[in-house]
């Protein structure tokens, strides 16, 4: 829908560059993130994911 705006948006000079820039930024960011996550040490990951559980109330029985 909203094709009626199409002709007007097309008149914005170089409008396609916005889409390209965004895709490129996201892709680059995502690749860096994947590399970082892949290189994280197993022990560290375990330690971090236990943060919420590392407390006294851990042993409280759930209702």
């Amino acid at each position, binding site marked *: *829908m*909203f*094709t*009626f*705006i*199409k002709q*007007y*948006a*097309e*008149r*914005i000079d170089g*409008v*396609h560059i*916005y*889409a*390209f*820039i*965004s*895709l490129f*930024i*996201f892709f680059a*960011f*995502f690749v860096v*993130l*994947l590399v*970082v*996550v*892949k*290189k*994280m040490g197993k022990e*560290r*990951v*375990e330690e*971090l*994911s*236990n*943060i*919420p*559980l590392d*407390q*006294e*109330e*851990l042993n*409280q029985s*759930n*209702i």
Partner: protein
Amino acid sequence: MQVEKFYYDNKIVRNFAYATILWGAVGMLVGLWIALQLVFPGPFPHGLNLAPWFNFGRLRPLHTNAVIFAFVGNGIFMGVYYSLQRLCKTRMFSDKLSYIHFWGWQLIIVAAAVTLPLGLTTGGEYAELIWPIDVAITVIWVVFGWNMFGTIIKRREKHLYVAIWFYIATFVTVAVLHIVRSGELPYTWLKSYSLYAGVQDALVQWWYGHNAVAFFLTTPYLGLMYYFLPKAANRPIYSYRLSIIHFWALIFLYIWAGPHHLLYTALPNWAQALGTVFSLMLIFPSWGGMINGLLTLRGAWDRVRDDVILKFMVVAVTAYGMATFEGPMLSLKSVSAISHYTDWIIAHVHIGALGWNGMLTFGVLYWIIPRIYKTDLYSKKLANVHFWLATLGILFYAIPMYWAGFQESSMWKQFTEAGQLKYTFLETVTYMKPFYAMRSFGGTLYLAGMVILVYNLYKTVKAGKLVANEAAEAAPLEKVFVAPKHEHWHRVIERKPVQFMVLSLVVILIGGLIELVPTFLIKSNVPTISSVKPYTPLELEGRDIYVREGCYLCHSQMIRPFRSETERYGEYSKAGEFVYDHPFQWGSKRIGPDLAREGSGNLKKSDGWHFRHFREPSSMSEGSIMPSYDFMLLNDLDTSDLSAKIHAMILLGVPYPANYEKDAMADLNIQAKEISDNLVGDSIRVSPRKEVIALIAYIQRLGTDIAKNPTATFNK
């Protein structure tokens, strides 16, 4: 290192929990009431519309605002204040700030609950609140952020757990969204006009609207999921690595999803394809979150059978997965053509609200209350009854609405063999009534479950005693922290909350700015249609009544370029027709027909028809479910703000003649007299001073500009 003793503030958690329950019940009750208004539309006591304060158009924003900002809002704060203290191993930064935050937020809700039924609204969906309340929201939001960052900075746990990232992203993004959407020009102490007009206003609105869903209903609740699901299941989250990817990808992509839906069809074909790819990509981080939640229960599914809290959470996460699969599908052009303006969208948002937000809130409430009262839950059996009522309530709500949506859409689009539209709009409305009744039954079940929760938690609270200050111990952070060698940058920023916030801000601003730059450029690219003129003073007053009564909640003013729509409503809408519309009134749902060309072509009716229709809609359209607006026949039009309104419009760039503020009243009187005289021909005698005259003037204006001269010229 010596261990320090400190106390968690449970009182503030209790307060927010109570507020969540109270406003949840209110929001759901209003929702049920407006659902029943569509089944019993007459004036009270024959129907459920209590004009003017409790008509559908005024109550619907109350429902949406109550559920989003009061129920879910307080739910967020309850969960954040509980989990943040424990994840940071410290008390909240300032009890005073917590107190101001709590009472400030409740006052805002009360102010909304009073102003919306009074018809004080800005007319933008989910952003209806008037400008003084917008200012108050900004102040209280800053108080919340201040308290949150103060707590994070004085923490005793070095690393910020993933839940806290979601809280930070929520704080930053909601602030940006709220400020941009609240761009208004006040003309009195209570009223204002949107700074943006027409297409631009629509793009800002849906950039805001969709991201309010993203960063108010989704990211903070994902934070709660990452804390409370592992707590309830007593096991760590399935994949911490996945949570990092999930978080960054989600906040990066989500900010795109709003105007994106409007914009990508406005772009060339290759760009539309790219836009679709972006929307579809959003499935991956969303499902990353869902999978992370559900797989946390791997090997513990047997416990889900017995643990009612886990049951609530599993349904919540599943509903999240369903809604976030459906969302990208709905943003496909071909699906949108069917779903837009129909009850399909109502079903979709209620899967999110009742399923994801509601069920997770209930799970967290059942988990927190017994703990802060140091007792057991009063009745697991009642909690189970609540669970089943809520789950069935969602199904009874959603299934009829999906069905209704498909039916509506197909009935709107069907033609006879002779090439005529097969159904009148009214036929499609009366066809919907049984579905609306079934939906109300689903809502009743869900609300009944809420009543059981109130009773169960009341008995639990009675049996226990609030531990207002819960003792805890932890070692302080080392003053000088030596980072391990070869440490990854993500681990570094996980220790630095301010840098983390800045990075989150940059990430959401990239998407936001790339979206908004073309949005603002569009203004200079919208063609001027020479025959489109500013509203006359009487039409402007009438338009403000249209906004006040929430007409846009049932009537769209946006004809899409489909044959089924142009046959029914006339020429499809052009961007240049809306350049003086502060705010835009395109609407998002057609409970009633589109009104974009109500004053022109085949749709034009006499002034007398409109007069009688406002007095009693069903007298002119048999079977209509529109409420009566007979009070407008009695109320005098308040023109005391007219010159301020015209002045504000001139400031916003609407080309009225210089000093027109002074002449506007005379023009208003002349036009009102014309309509009043015209009505005499229809055997109706009414003073030209009445509100209904202004509204008739506005309705009769709709769509007439383009009928005069449809040629457009670009100002480029």
